[in-house]
């Protein structure tokens, strides 16, 4: 069953389209990534999903409900961690958890939640005195305290150090393991590749691609990279004639080719035929980074 359905969503600010016909669906139990460069319209899209903005056109449904018309019922099933939001500076962690738990009809018990998010030692600390990572963890706790069916996490790991980021990834996997669907907004490729079941790449207000991380990488022209140092020079024309080749790079006696698995097979055949030995042979998949750059390449 689809937990979130977005169909042809449009939103402009001052005549400038920020979201320009975005569509996707998120299935129950998925970690769904919304990936894109800064200013691509990611945050506006999820704000429409959370009912914080009214779309100019298009349809948004969360568990079948309209987030604008049915704000309260959608807010009861959707927990959000937002960018650019804080709490009252003198509110303590405990008070924040108690207050937000009181907003929901069937809240989760906040104590185990605080325990799991390492907030237990700082329950009496005021919000203003928390570190960046502690504030983020508190916001995750507040997003979960209503026992939601889906959480929106918007740039959750931005500004965290690498260790805290990795801990947060584990946390996101735990959230999903607890049966909650996750809509994850990010601009970190590694994060999206590691966590997401499917990713919508958003660029300039449109969905540039929607696929699994592996699928996105496969779409990229040079999905597989093979590199080696040949024992004898190879004929460049032979290399350029390889099937499904995306790029050739000959530098310092090292050959680097990108293409598909078929390219790799043809290279091995070529080496065998010419009796050239490939030293330090490496075959790697390109990263989501490269695929992402391919997909969001500016036409400017």
């Amino acid at each position: 069953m689809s937990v979130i359905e977005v169909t042809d969503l449009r939103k402009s600010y001052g005549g400038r389209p920020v979201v320009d016909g975005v569509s996707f669906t998120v299935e129950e139990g998925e970690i769904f990534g919304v990936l894109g460069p800064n200013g691509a319209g990611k945050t506006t899209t999820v704000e429409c999903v959370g009912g914080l903005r009214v779309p100019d056109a298009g349809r948004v449904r969360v568990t079948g409900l309209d987030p604008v018309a049915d704000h309260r019922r959608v807010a009861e099933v959707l927990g959000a961690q937002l960018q650019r939001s804080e709490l009252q500076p003198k509110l303590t962690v405990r008070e924040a958890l108690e207050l937000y738990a009181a907003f929901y009809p069937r809240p989760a018990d906040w104590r185990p939640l605080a325990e799991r998010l390492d907030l237990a030692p700082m329950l009496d600390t005021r919000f203003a005195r928390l570190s960046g990572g502690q504030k983020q963890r508190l916001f995750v706790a507040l997003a979960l305290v209503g026992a939601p069916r889906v959480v929106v996490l918007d740039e959750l790991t931005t500004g965290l150090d690498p260790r805290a980021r990795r801990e947060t990834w584990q946390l996101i996997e735990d959230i999903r393991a607890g049966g909650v669907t996750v809509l994850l907004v990010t601009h970190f490729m590694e994060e999206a590749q590691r966590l997401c079941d499917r990713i919508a790449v958003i660029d300039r207000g449109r969905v540039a691609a929607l696929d699994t991380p592996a699928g996105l990488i496969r779409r990229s022209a040079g999905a597989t990279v093979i590199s080696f140092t040949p024992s004898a020079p190879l004929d460049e024309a032979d290399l350029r004639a390889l099937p499904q080749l995306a790029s050739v790079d000959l530098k310092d006696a090292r050959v680097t080719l990108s293409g598909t698995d078929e390219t790799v097979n043809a290279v091995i055949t070529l080496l065998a035929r010419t009796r050239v030995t490939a030293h330090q042979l490496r075959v790697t998949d390109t990263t989501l980074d490269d695929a992402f750059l391919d997909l969001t390449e500016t036409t400017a």
Partner: protein
Amino acid sequence: MKTDVLDTAVLRTELRLFRREPGALFWMLAFPTLLLVILGSIPSFREADPSFDGLRPVDAYVPVAVLLGLTVGGLQGMPQVLTGYRERGILRRMSATPVRPAALLTAQMVVCGGAALGSALLAVAVGRLAFDVSLPEQPLGYLLALLLAVLAALSLGAVLSALSRTTKIAGAIGSAALFPAMFCAGVWLPVQAMPDLLARIVGWTPFGAAAQALNEAAAGDWPDWSHLAVLVAWTALLTAAASRWFRWE
């Protein structure tokens, strides 16, 4: 209790947070009565004065102290807090919950209005106990005038919160408006002692009208309907302006 605009959990939290603001507590609750005590300690303020219609200046300063707390709260307290809540995205965070951020506005108004009433009660009590100022002889009229004055102050605060994009702007506008408002309430010269024309002009302002209504009720008359009408008109106008211009983020 839970509606879109009133939520007891939010109200409890805002009350708790208000108690953690020593500045707000001092200026809204203690300062007006403190001023009354200082003025009342001057011997000449405890002698009947013909320019105060035969009242002692300390008698005339009790209604001033009563209005001072709500003036400070409405112009400086609430706008600072609400623009801060908007600036920091606290209202935004709350819009993502089943409770609307309007609940925060209501809670702030209840806390601020409650503090203003508490401050007024304290001023009246200290005036009675320390300086033998008689209690209002028309208590119902006094209470009505006070409640209307609180509503006017809160709606003025709401307009300031709506018009100020940042806490800095709210602070600047609040301070700039505070002095004329305190003047109208009679802090420098109680309205009884003002020249007739000035008193009439001041009577068109919310705090001037409130001061005159309180004086009439203190003396035992039902407050003049024109003063009460001025307060109601300001409240309606300011509330409409605030709801027209208020932005959640």
